[in-house]
């Protein structure tokens, strides 16, 4: 029984209705069946090590979303200009859309899906975004949270101005910025207390 997600429901529904799937998705499914130009790539995502057969051109973002079905990281621009795809690689906040999966082999990749504890307790940054209402549509939010954690760890969350500057790589079309700054400040205090 496949996992019930928006994607599986819509896809199954479209198949039942006889509607042709988007040709891009169809090609991706075909490509996923190990054609030439692929290799085995060892990825360590949220502590789980796995091997994927990937086209060499696959970015970490596409590996996460299309192959591992970890759709928390978003594809806002796919050009490194919006920050919605921010993940941590080897503990550093980076852009998944500009990182080849094959280049991230064997490195520790942490995504939004890996933040909460096993018992469901949210990471202080996630909780702070809820407590301060740091999002509206939520599309940029996973990237904001991952970036904000990096910002605090880097020691760049010491003032409103510094937070704005060091979070400038994450765009928010809803302009939730003031509340995002509040969330980062709140989380920083909680993270420092351990």
């Amino acid at each position, binding site marked *: 029984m496949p996992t019930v997600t928006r994607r599986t429901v819509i896809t199954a529904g479209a198949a039942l209705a006889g509607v042709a799937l988007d040709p891009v998705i169809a090609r991706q499914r075909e490509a996923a069946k190990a054609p030439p130009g692929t290799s085995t790539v060892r990825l360590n995502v949220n502590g789980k090590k796995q091997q994927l057969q990937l*086209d*060499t051109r696959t970015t970490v973002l596409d590996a996460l979303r299309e192959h591992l079905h970890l759709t928390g990281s978003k594809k806002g621009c*796919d050009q490194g200009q919006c920050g919605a795809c921010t993940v941590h690689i080897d503990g*550093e906040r980076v*852009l998944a859309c*500009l990182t*080849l999966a*094959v280049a991230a082999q064997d490195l520790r990749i942490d995504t939004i899906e890996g933040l909460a504890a096993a018992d469901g307790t949210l990471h202080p940054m996630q909780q702070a975004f809820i407590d301060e209402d740091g999002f509206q549509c939520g599309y940029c939010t996973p990237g904001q949270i991952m970036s904000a954690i990096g910002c605090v760890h880097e020691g760049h969350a010491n003032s409103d101005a510094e937070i704005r500057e*060091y979070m400038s790589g994450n765009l928010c079309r809803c302009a939730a910025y003031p509340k995002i700054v509040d969330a980062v400040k709140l989380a920083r205090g909680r993270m420092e207390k351990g």
Partner: protein
Amino acid sequence: MRPFAYERAADVASAMRLGAASGQGQSDARVQFLAGGTTLIDLMKLDVLRPERVIDLAPSRGEHQNIEWTADGLTLGAFAKMAAVENHATVRLECPAIAQSLQQAASAQLRNMATLGGNVLQKTRCPYYRDVSWTACNKRDPGSGCSALTAPNRNHAVLGVDDTCISQYPGDFAVALMALEAAVQISGPLGARQIAFADLHKSPEGHPEIETTLRSGEVITAFKIPAAAWNRRSLYLKVRDRASYEFALASAAVALDMDGDRVRQARIGLGGVAYRPWRALPAEAQLAGKPLTARNAEEAARIALQDAKTHGGNDFKPELARRTLVRALLQAGALQHA
């Protein structure tokens, strides 16, 4: 993105061997080096760069990430990440223009990914270069023409251009390197060499597809900024549409050796306005020995931009660049701790 073969170079020596077939061309370069990927992966997705082989330099990184300060000056390994150098206390103290040029570039995420070597080799943001549907682009396709000459060209260069290309070099770090007279160390299949950073980038000279003097298979390994009396009194001022995460409309790296109110020596680099990283030598000569007044700064700025050539959309740039340079000079003169 077109298919490519991916290889990892265990060290710089292997990288050079693997890259020896790279050639000097732009989109027709069959082999490209991959460092942080922030330029290469971006342009491969846009089909501007189409390598058949990509050589990942990541395993070589350990050799050349050093940040060292000695009596001779500052050495920066080319594989050091921008973020590491930006945050380094010694760099911030001894060469603030370097630290500031890195801190004001890109975004925090990009600075975590990007290496110094890759950063200086970044490509123009010219929209006609980046969008292959504009077929006239002499940089991408030699001889095809220059779309920017007759299309919107607000952020195109006014210095160092010719009628084959008016694209603007968008980097910041390179501007500071120009001002501080940096040298660059290069390793290649034919051995190691060191050149003035000023000799790395080329003017269009009718062939904008050839951007640097790097030879096939060569890898930048380090930057060296010589110790000098002006290094500490330096800064990087970047003027742009947004307060952050935006390329320069005009920028200036300035370094001053002062004797009271008088400038002994000035060093000036300009960004956001030139085809390549730009050193404003005549402006430096104008300031040498003079009091640092607004009037003298304005005269130096006038000289710095006197050969500016505009193409309609960027008519505002020379004045903006002059004012940016004046402000940078006066701010540098007013620095207290230097």
